[in-house]
């Protein structure tokens, strides 16, 4: 090439500067290339890992909650899909008019009002990529309709989530039959979440809040799995990369409850309460041999389905305002004076502690002079005439108060308390239900905790007949009589029979558990069982004896007057009846025990006996109706 620059007359060219420029350029290219090599080839994995980590989140894979069946395999707590219409603001049309068209289409497909939807959408102030719930609980058909027209409603999605549904014995949706046993599930509260988060609970998670749902939460919930999900820059999950751990479905439970019995017991109690003007009532049906609870009714009840879908504040506060506390399971959470039913404990203690022999006769009185108290300060018998001399068995079936006053005074409070504890009173039975109360059993220690040296003798005497300083839960009482019925084994009441497969077939039975073998002798128990039988044949429960039953019914009544006085100055009547019998003809052991407690009756007399009678009539399909009107019972049901 010829020298092109020989004619140049302007600036001279500098070869040195050109070389310097070229070298600088070469150096810069080397730096860029070298840095690329370092980042991509040498440290590529590090950056790639960082990139993946930054755009990957671990999302929980929810496990389906375990189902709950009754003891016959009927499903009573199931999961049903619940459809929710949600809006993703970022995907909705930007133009306000186009947006209104979308909302109007949603409204017309779901029979709701567009204005309501718009209001809910406008009330939301989070990320535009969040899903804003507009309408919960739409029907399956509506959900399908919306899905079919998805292209006409941009920004609208239908989310399906499982919610709990509670059924009755006929498979109908009924949240009140077993509300207190099953409880309900509800959203995890913010307060709980802090402690539950480490157990894998999510902010939008639900948790068992009461009943079996709460006490068997760990089993029903299952184990959530987790997935690695790739997000886009706006945080929307885009692709499942891998499933780290599979979700393990919750295990299914079979209750000891028989939903049909629950229905019978509920109907019987409902009738008795209405007939006697009773506001609260409890019926417990159990197998005294195993401690299995066959029915547990606490009235008034509530609708746990209302909770499953998220209860409204108004409905919830209405439940809270109700003076009869429908949300409480009165069978286990509330304590009442057991009245004469407690004579089981006093009788056992008197025999075992040698206060009396089985045949020893004690005088009874119309009014028992409290030892050490000023003359005339006496405690009445319900029978103001007195019974004359009685032995312990006679006193039990006639329910003589003054006999048991004397036993208690001779025993002293601590020996009485010892036997109360032996029968399981004074502390929770340990049934797997939340909220069980302990009850009150008077003792020296108890008196001292109240700031006095000991109980007064009058209190001691009253303790002997289950009044004043004694309070028990209906379940404790039922369980104590179960021990009497089964020959002295205090069982732990069971509410869950075991685990089943998805169809409700029992796969793993939970074994019955004995709390203790009562230290009372067989003869002591026998005497009291005889007494209990006589209560039915010739004692206070004789009203029930005409009902044809498959085996010999034994039992004990009890009443107490306590609470808030009526306008006329009288106290409300509370009545107990607890009875047990072999459930099949020819069986020798009692396998069915029914306890009923009616609280706050407006009429005197033992409503509970009538309720139990009615239950037996239904249970054993007795054709004739032997029920009496509780209002005409007068004081027959005395103690």
């Amino acid at each position, binding site marked *: 090439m010829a020298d*092109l620059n020989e004619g140049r007359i302007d600036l001279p060219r500098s070869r040195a500067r050109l070389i310097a420029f070229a070298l600088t350029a070469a150096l810069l290219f080397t730096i860029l290339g070298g840095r690329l090599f370092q980042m991509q080839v040498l440290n590529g994995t*590090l950056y790639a890992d960082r990139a993946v980590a930054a755009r990957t989140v671990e999302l929980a894979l929810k496990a389906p909650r375990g189902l709950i069946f009754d003891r016959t395999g009927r499903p009573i707590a199931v999961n049903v899909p619940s459809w929710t219409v949600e809006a993703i603001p970022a995907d909705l049309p930007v133009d306000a008019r186009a947006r209104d068209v979308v909302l109007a289409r949603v409204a017309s497909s779901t029979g709701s009002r567009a204005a309501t939807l718009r209001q809910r959408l406008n009330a939301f102030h989070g990320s535009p990529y969040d899903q804003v719930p507009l309408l919960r609980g739409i029907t399956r058909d509506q959900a399908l309709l919306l899905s079919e027209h998805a292209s006409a409603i941009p920004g609208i999605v239908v989310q399906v989530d499982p919610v709990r549904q509670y059924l009755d014995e006929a498979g109908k949706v009924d949240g009140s039959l077993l509300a207190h046993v099953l409880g309900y599930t509800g959203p995890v509260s913010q307060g709980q979440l802090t402690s539950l988060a480490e157990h894998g609970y999510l902010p939008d998670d639900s948790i068992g809040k009461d009943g079996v749902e709460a006490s068997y939460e760990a089993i029903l919930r299952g184990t959530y799995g987790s997935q690695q999900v790739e997000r886009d820059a706006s945080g929307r999950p885009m692709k499942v990369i891998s499933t780290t751990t599979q979700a393990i479905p919750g295990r299914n439970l079979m209750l000891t409850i028989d939903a049909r019995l629950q229905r019978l017991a509920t109907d019987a109690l409902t009738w008795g309460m209405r007939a006697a003007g009773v506001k609260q009532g409890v019926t417990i049906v159990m197998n005294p041999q195993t401690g299995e609870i066959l029915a547990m009714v606490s009235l008034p009840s509530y609708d746990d389905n209302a909770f499953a879908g998220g209860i409204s504040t108004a409905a919830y506060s209405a439940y809270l305002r109700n003076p009869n506390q429908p949300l409480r399971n009165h069978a286990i959470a509330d304590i009442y004076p057991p009245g004469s039913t407690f004579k089981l404990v006093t009788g056992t203690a008197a025999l075992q502690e040698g206060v009396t022999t089985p045949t020893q006769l004690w005088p009874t009185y119309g009014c028992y002079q409290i030892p050490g108290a000023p003359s005339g300060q006496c405690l009445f018998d319900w029978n103001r005439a007195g019974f004359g001399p009685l032995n312990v068995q006679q006193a039990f079936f006639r329910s003589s108060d003054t006999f048991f006053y004397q036993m208690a005074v001779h025993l002293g409070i601590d020996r009485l308390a010892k036997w109360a504890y032996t029968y399981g009173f004074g502390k929770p039975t340990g049934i797997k239900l939340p909220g069980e109360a302990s009850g009150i059993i008077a003792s020296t220690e108890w008196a001292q905790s109240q700031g006095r040296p000991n109980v007064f003798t009058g209190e001691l005497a009253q303790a002997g007949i289950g009044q004043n300083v004694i309070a028990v839960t209906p379940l404790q009482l039922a369980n104590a009589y179960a021990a009497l019925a089964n020959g002295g084994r205090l069982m732990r009441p069971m509410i869950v029979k075991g685990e089943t497969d998805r169809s409700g077939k029992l796969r793993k039975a939970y074994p019955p558990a004995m709390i203790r073998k009562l230290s009372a002798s067989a003869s002591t128990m026998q005497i009291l069982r005889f007494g209990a039988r006589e209560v039915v044949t010739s004692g206070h429960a004789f009203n029930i004896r005409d009902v044809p039953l498959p085996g010999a019914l034994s039992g004990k009544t009890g009443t107490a007057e306590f609470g808030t006085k009526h306008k006329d100055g009288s106290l409300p009547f509370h009545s107990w009846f607890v009875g047990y019998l072999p459930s099949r003809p020819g069986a020798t052991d009692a396998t069915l025990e029914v306890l009923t407690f009616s609280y706050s009756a407006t009429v005197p007399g033992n409503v509970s006996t009538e309720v139990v009678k009615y239950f037996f009539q239904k249970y054993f399909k007795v054709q004739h109706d032997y029920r009496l009107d509780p209002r005409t019972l007068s004081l027959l049901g005395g103690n």
Partner: protein
Amino acid sequence: MGAAATTFVDNVRERAWRAFDWQLLLYVALIVGFGVVMGYSASFNEAGQPEGGISQTVKTLLWVGIGFTIFFVAASIDYHWLTTFTAPIYIGVLLLLVLNLVIGRSLNGATLSISVAGLDFQVSEVSKVLMIVVLASWLSGRREKIGRLSTIVGAAILMGIPTFLVFRQPDLGTALVFVAILVAMLFMSGASIGWMALLAGGVVAAAPVAVNALAAYQRARLFCFLNPYADPQGACYQLVQALNAVGSGGWFGQGLTAGRQNQLGYLPVQTTDFIFTVVAEELGFVGGLLMLSLFALLLWRILVIGWGARDALGSMVAWGLASMLLFQLLVNVGMVIGIMPVTGIPLPFITYGGSSMISLLFGMGILESVRVHSRKQTF
């Protein structure tokens, strides 16, 4: 067709075409083609589809067509017409920049473009190439006065006014490109290295003041450049995502149109200033090196043309364009590989933008003209 047209074609055939630098055209075309493909690939979203269809790519191709037309027009005209028009060009640049400050449209907070008949016209992009022409023309006229301080001061004033106007947009990136062009062209023109070093020392001494004058977001960028992983979720989020994308490329990349960081929207302004992250993520080290090699070849070619230019004007235009390309490449690629702070400087020929494409191809056309008109002409 008349006689004039015949003359033009004859001219081309007889002298120009033989001198035409095919290599320059080849490297430019390869880089532009590379850019079109990467722009298309960068538009892919998470669904594996180009976001908004191929309309963007069609637009790019339209600009490329216009750009190459201008390239050939500029190549076929003797570049000395630039000397004649230096003063009008300079005044035109200043007017445009002032106009831009007054009526420019806001883009990411900075007023960067004027919309004419619906087409966004980025004044600062065009002004870079025009200022190279202006400076080349002025410096080549200095002749024996080139070693004086007045050369440096004069050039600084000439360049300083548009630099200030661009800085006020605010467009720090383009302002820095102006400064780089100024320094490189002064150096190559034969200006006094002593005076330059002295002035450079003064500038370095004033650096702390300059840092204080930076806007908050610019200081945050500086902070992230020094330590990107100190605040990966906050101020440095975009840079960290870009670094991760580049590193993820490995040897061969994740494949064209398959970069996950890109598709999932983690890369900021991926079709413009951060386009190289897509190159690095999808084509890996090999692809990045290929791109750098094409630029290196282009630069080499420009230097060859500059050295062989018939006069200082041609040389100076070549040095100016070379320094502009080198500086933009260094800053644009450097910021996504963590060796330069983040500044809004486009990657020449590859970052999407009509004004940039047209002005760059115009510049390349002038270079071709320099080449063509440097041949010793035999009539």
